[in-house]
């Protein structure tokens, strides 16, 4: 099997400071990988480098495209990368406001991505939007409301619907459940897990919540000061951490 994503020697520096360095891994279709670490450890820098939002200083991000097979997304042209961002890739921001158009209706938010890949039939687009609102458990009657009228949890679910409507194969998520209250978090986790299973998605999830990765991620990467200090099977890393920092991280979690 060809890996969906191959990350080779990614490095990003901010002047003399290290953003992230020497990151290597392969992600296979259907796999969900978590990236954990404290604030400032380079998780989001790495995610943005992989998703093409930041240009890495070194390294390759090779994606197995539908048309052309494995291609390095760092060196591909801007239009190619944008096309990928609209079709096979999706990016769920921590703050739903960063990933939504706040002045456009909920249905419009979902429809926009469909139109970007060439859908033109208004009725079909609207039907799809309504279908996806249902899947993320937002009532159909809210299709014409703007996201400004939605609660934080609903906005986050709308953002997920907008991202998944075009059937991407790889989803990048930056703290998808951060800032939501726990009952909404649970709903969102349940939803994400179902979608991952049904659509065969691969995902990379950045979070600092170890409980979230235990439930969602198959694999885990632990970062500290821009370096990957440990990687492996999620329950192995959490139950039997090998690196001192991971041990500290795991033992610092408050028990409920």
């Amino acid at each position: 099997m060809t890996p969906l994503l191959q990350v080779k020697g990614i490095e990003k520096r901010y002047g003399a400071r290290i953003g992230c360095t020497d990151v290597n891994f392969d992600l296979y279709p259907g796999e969900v990988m978590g990236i954990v670490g404290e604030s400032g450890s380079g998780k989001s820098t790495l995610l943005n480098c992989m998703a093409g939002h930041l240009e890495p200083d070194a390294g390759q991000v090779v994606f197995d495209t539908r048309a052309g097979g494995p291609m390095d997304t760092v060196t591909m042209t801007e239009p190619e990368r944008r096309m990928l961002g609209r079709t096979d890739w999706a990016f769920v921001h921590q703050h739903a406001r960063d990933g939504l158009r706040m002045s456009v209706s909920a249905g419009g938010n979902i429809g926009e991505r469909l139109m970007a890949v060439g859908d033109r039939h208004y009725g079909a687009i609207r039907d799809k939007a309504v279908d996806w609102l249902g899947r993320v458990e937002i009532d159909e009657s809210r299709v014409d409301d703007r996201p400004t009228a939605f609660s934080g949890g609903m906005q986050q679910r709308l953002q997920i619907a907008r991202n998944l409507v075009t059937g991407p194969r790889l989803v990048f998520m930056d703290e998808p459940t951060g800032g939501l209250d726990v009952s909404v978090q649970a709903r969102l986790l349940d939803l994400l897990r179902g979608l991952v299973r049904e659509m065969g998605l691969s995902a990379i999830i950045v979070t600092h919540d170890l409980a979230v990765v235990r439930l969602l991620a198959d694999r885990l990467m632990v970062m500290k000061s821009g370096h990957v200090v440990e990687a492996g099977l999620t329950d192995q890393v959490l139950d039997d951490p090998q690196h001192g920092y991971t041990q500290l991280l795991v033992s610092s979690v408050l028990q409920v």
Partner: protein
Amino acid sequence: MIELRDVSKSFTLHNQGSAVIPVMEGASLKVAPGECVALTGASGAGKSTLMRVIYGNYLAASGQVLVAGLDVAQAEPREILALRRETLGYVSQFLRVVPRVPTLEVVAEPLLTIGCDKTEALDKAASLLARLNIPEGLWRLSPTTFSGGEQQRVNIARGFVHDYPALLIDEPTASLDAQNRETVLSLIEEANARGAAIVGIFHDVGARERVCDREINVSEFTPGVAA
């Protein structure tokens, strides 16, 4: 089916003066299909550790851990995940689930992840829950609010819903009444009869003597005790 060759395990506590605690040395065992082996030994002897080394959530320090031909100590995460989906089941003492998911789906999940038809998976889950005396009224609720014994039975149902060729069972009868204990033991016997290799921890001596073919005392593998 399950074979350990000279496996050792130690914990290094980096944040407590880098103390190294060796917990297992020279562990070797072999479990054939259709065999049920009990791990015995005092609390802290390393029964659960050994089981977790087989399941792959503890990393063996050295040696080989072969399950259906795959060396769990060396394998890639995705190989271990595939092994757990298809071949190796684990009934732990604690239920860990996504909140809000109904019990019936929690139990059916191992079947759904291997691509089983949804109706079929739910049917099988329902028949197991019925057999384990979980009242039907609870099937639509999340098991997070259930009593200890109910959670344990949900966990057992989840472990037996797919016919795993290899099973690890940790204290399956600990907090169960006589009737449910009986059901669980017959589930184990049935799994054995269809050819599953089983490694179990049973504190219940009666249960152990009834379902197990052999006992392995893990204190033989405890460093400093073994010759």
